[in-house]
Every structure is written in C-alpha cells, then in structure tokens.
C-alpha cells in the first residue's frame, strides 16, 4: 500500500510537471493521475474528462481518451478511432495494444480510459478490481478450427477435438483422415483466444502439456499451420484464408450466419471496459463503436456486430 502511494505520488508529480510543460497532450494523463490519487468514486475520474468535453459541444465531442489492451481488438478499435476522429475533429482517441491483461490493469488503475479485452475482466483481475469496471460488449469474434490443407478431414466432433487437444488422438487416421501425425499449434495459456477455444470448443478440457507448439500471434499460427503437415490450430475468422483449411465443428460450418443463429458455439465477445459509467468523449466513442453507422466496418474487418446476434451469453 505504501509502495502504491509512493508511486502514485511520484507519477502525479511527474505528470503535473509534464502537463504544465506540454499542455497539448497532458489532458488525459491528468485524468489518470487524479483518479488513482483520489481513489474514491469512479464517476469522478470520468467526470474530469467530461468537463473538458463540455465547452465545445457544438462541433462534436472534444477531449482525449486512451484505449489499451487486446491485440485482437486493436485493428477494429484503431479503425473506429480513425473514423470517429474524422467527424469529431476536436477529439483524440489513442488506441494501443499490449494485451488484454495490460488493458484491464491499466483501466482499473486509471492509466487508460478504456481497457480492451478478449475475456471477461473477472478472469484476469482480482474480484474487487473487476467489480469496479463496466463492461461494454462491442462485437463478437468467431473462431474456426483450422488444419493444414493436406489433412483430409472436413469435420470434427466435439469429442474428437477434445481427444486431439488432450493428446488421446495423435494420428489423423483415428479421426477419419489419412495416416498422418497430428501437430497441435496452441496459443500461450494467457491468451484470450485460447481461453475461448478451451471453454466453448473443448468444454474446458485441460490440454495436454509439452506436446503442442505454441505461437502467440495469429500470423505465426497461420504460417505454422500452412507449412506443417498434419497441423491443427484455431484462428479468428478474419485470419482464415486459402492457405489453411477451416473445419466444421459438429457438422456446422464456421460461418457468420451460423454464429449469429447460435448453432456454432466457438465465439466470444470483445469487451471494452471503463471504470464506472463512461461520460464525455469516452461515452461518445463507445456509442459510436456500437452504432449502425459503424456496423459495415465491423463486418468488413471480419468481426460480427453485436446487434446481429440472435443469441447472447452472460459469461
């Protein structure tokens, strides 16, 4: 606690001196330092950014906000910020990667206004910190099981998939294919994609340790799958292309229609967390993300707009 106070004071002093020196860019840092220093109600922190926004309400919203976190959500958030800033010339939205854990931690400590995450906050943060955050589900991402194109299998049942990832089946001939060794390419255990896949495709079955290759980025996973005979992994739908083969799950194709109708279960929400209810520019930006105006861009980038989902989940 003492250490925290110390670092807060230090960062406060630094940001203060800095924001006086560099007025143009200090605004959102001040907000950050204020909220963590006072540590009281969360509304206060966003209130200070709304006061900045208030005076020039005629020419769109103004003020600045930072969104940090999930690299899976980053392309969409960046694109959204770009379009948002074109209409709101006075607004400044900064989008940064860093991973879901970083995003959630930053928003919970006031270092960022929005925390982007692939998973629910409770899965990364201690309960008390997660409770202070407000979840905004901005879109849905579907995942497909992908294999090397040489694999002669088109469909896997849930049980087969579980057997493969837990190491019970190690050859494609036991899953209806040719005699070829199965090579699992997994994500690091901290990855949101892996958590989603484990939860919805594998029914939470614990993957076997020490047999899978691990790549932490969609691009590297795709390359590994495309190059390695017998390889199997999972990718967000937007990354699936002709170099890899997407498999049916329980006979259902990983397609947007099947996800929105609820028949294909391997999908997850992308979250944008705020500390307390958003106000000012943060609220305007979050509203824009879920607006009809932005919907075509969501689809174009390979995500699924929330409003098209006919099913919903609570956790």
């Amino acid at each position, binding site marked *: 606690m003492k250490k925290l106070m110390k670092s807060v004071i230090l960062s406060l002093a630094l940001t203060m001196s800095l924001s006086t020196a560099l007025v143009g*860019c200090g605004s959102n840092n001040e907000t950050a330092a204020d909220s963590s220093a006072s540590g009281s109600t969360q509304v206060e922190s966003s209130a200070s950014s709304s006061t900045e926004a208030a005076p020039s309400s005629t020419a769109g919203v103004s003020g600045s906000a930072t969104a*940090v976190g999930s690299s899976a959500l980053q392309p969409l958030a960046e694109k959204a910020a770009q379009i948002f800033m074109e209409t709101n010339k006075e607004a400044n939205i900064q989008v*940064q990667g860093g991973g879901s854990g970083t995003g959630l931690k930053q928003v919970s400590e006031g270092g960022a206004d929005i925390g982007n995450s692939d998973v629910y906050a409770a899965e990364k943060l201690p309960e008390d910190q997660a409770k202070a955050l407000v979840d905004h589900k901005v879109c849905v991402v579907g995942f497909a099981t992908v294999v090397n194109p040489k694999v002669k299998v088109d469909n896997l049942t849930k049980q087969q998939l579980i057997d493969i990832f837990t190491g019970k089946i190690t050859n494609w001939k036991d899953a209806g294919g040719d005699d070829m060794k199965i090579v699992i390419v997994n994500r690091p255990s901290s990855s949101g994609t892996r958590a989603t896949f484990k939860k919805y495709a594998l029914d939470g079955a614990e993957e076997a340790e020490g047999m899978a290759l691990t790549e932490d980025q969609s*691009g590297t996973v795709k390359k590994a799958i495309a190059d390695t005979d017998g390889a199997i992994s999972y990718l967000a739908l937007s990354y699936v292309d002709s170099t890899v083969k997407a498999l049916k799950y329980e006979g259902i194709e990983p397609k947007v229609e099947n996800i929105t109708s609820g028949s294909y279960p391997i999908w997850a929400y992308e979250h944008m967390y705020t500390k307390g209810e958003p106000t000012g520019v943060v609220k305007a930006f979050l509203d824009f993300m879920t607006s009809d105006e932005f919907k075509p861009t969501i689809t174009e980038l390979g995500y699924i707009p929330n409003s098209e989902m006919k099913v919903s989940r609570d956790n």
Partner: protein
Amino acid sequence: MKSKTADKLATVVFYIIATGFILLLMLFVGYIIYQGRDRLNLHFITSAPTFMKEGGGIGPQLFNSLYLVFLSMLITVPIGLSAGIYLAEYAKPGRITNMVRFCIEALASLPSIVIGLFGLLVFVTMTGWGYTLFSGALAVAVLNLPVITRISEDAIRNVPQTVKEASLALGATHWQTIYRVILPTALPGLVTGLIMTSGRVFGEAAALLYTAGMSSPNLNFHDLNPFHARSPLNPFRPAETLAVYIWKVNSEGLAPDSRQIADGASSILIISVFLFNIISRFLGRVLNVRFSGSKN
C-alpha cells in the same frame, strides 16, 4: 615439410571460412532485398498503411523510426559523451571508476527485453505517459548509453597524446583542452560510431514493444506543432517503428498482402542499415581530412 603442408592447409581453411562468412551475409541480405524487391518504390515508402486493403505503405513507421533515432540520440549523446570524457580524461583508477565501468558493462549486456520491461514500468506506467514515442526513446537511450559511452571513450583515447600536451603547455586548462582540442580531433571517430549506433536503434524492436507501443495515430503531416496530438512531431504519442511494424504485420496483419509488406519493410530496414553504415564511413573520412588535414 609436414608443417608447411599444414600451414597451407590451414590458410586454405581460413580463406574458406572467411569467404563463407561473406557469402552468408550476401545471401542473407540478397534474400531479404530480393523478397522485398516489389515494394522498393516511393509509394511504399511514403504512403500510410491500410488495414484490410492491399497496397498499404510504411510512411509513418519509417518517419517514427527516424524520429525515434533522433530523440534517443538527443538524450544519449550528451550523457554518453560526457561519461566518455569523464572516463577517458578525469577518472582516476579506483573503486568508483571500476564501479562505473562495471555498470557500463552490465548495462551493455542487459537483454533488450529487460530494458523494455523496465521502460514499461518506469517510463510508461509510473510517469503515466502511456505508450509514447518519448518513452520508447528513453528506453532505447538506456539500451544505447553504454555503447555510446564506450565509443566516446575510445574516440577520445585515440587522440594523440602530443596534441593534448601541446594544448596544456600553452596554458589551457584541462577542460579547455578537452573541448577546444580533444573533441574536434576525436570528432571523426565519434561521428562514425554514433551513426553506426543509430543504425542499431533503427532495428530495435523488443525494447519498443512495451514502451513506444504498437500503434500509430493518424498523423497529419502538415501540422508541425509538436504540441498537437496528431502532429508527427509530438513526442507524446504512441509510435510504431518500422521494426515493430514488421513484428506486428507478421503476427496480426490483416491485409491480404501482409507477407509482402513484411518483406518490403525488412528490405527497407536492411537498406537503411547499409545507408547508415556507408554514410558514417563517408562522414568519418571527410571529417578526418578536414580536422586533421591528413588522409591517414
């Protein structure tokens, strides 16, 4: 007779290894440039990246890299040069000097990822700046400080003792001698070393992933006020450098031509490193002729 044969054989082996080394480099560089040959045009170098469509460029990233090199050099050179002067001219052998030297070596051998994490903790989180170009520049400065210090010390030590003694004999103080006589004489060596180090900063990625961030806001290249959020000159904005961009395109690239972009960016990076090398050699030679009057 036998030792003669062994000698010949050894010479041949050494030649083979040296040739192999050069060939390896040529193959390596050739492969990268060949892969990226389609992208070596002005459009690619100057235009902004696109998200989903083909044909995106690396303009902002290239600019960020150059700006980052500039900023980090602005921080490192005064400190590194001073420390180099101290070590070469003032430091007396003893505990403290040994300590300084130990620290330089320790800093030099630190993994860049550790420095990146340190930067994340101090320049990003503690200062509350978030991922900014300036945080990145500071992290790279830490990474480069020992190198620059060593280069400065070497360059100063290489100044002939006679030059120094002549100045002191004329009644100049030690410090006057340093900045009027020693520094100008050491300048060619300094410049060569500094530019080569810049080339290295250009390619650094691990330390920047956690400090300068992996995104670049929309830059308005007509706005040159460094206090504006969208000005390219604003050091307090997140900035993705070329090396980080290659990492990102490889890993999360959504554009259909992401592979080509990575190849193109890699070859631009390699060519830049080459350019830094050639320029530093050239400048070093020119300065050498100007300041010492000899071709040496």
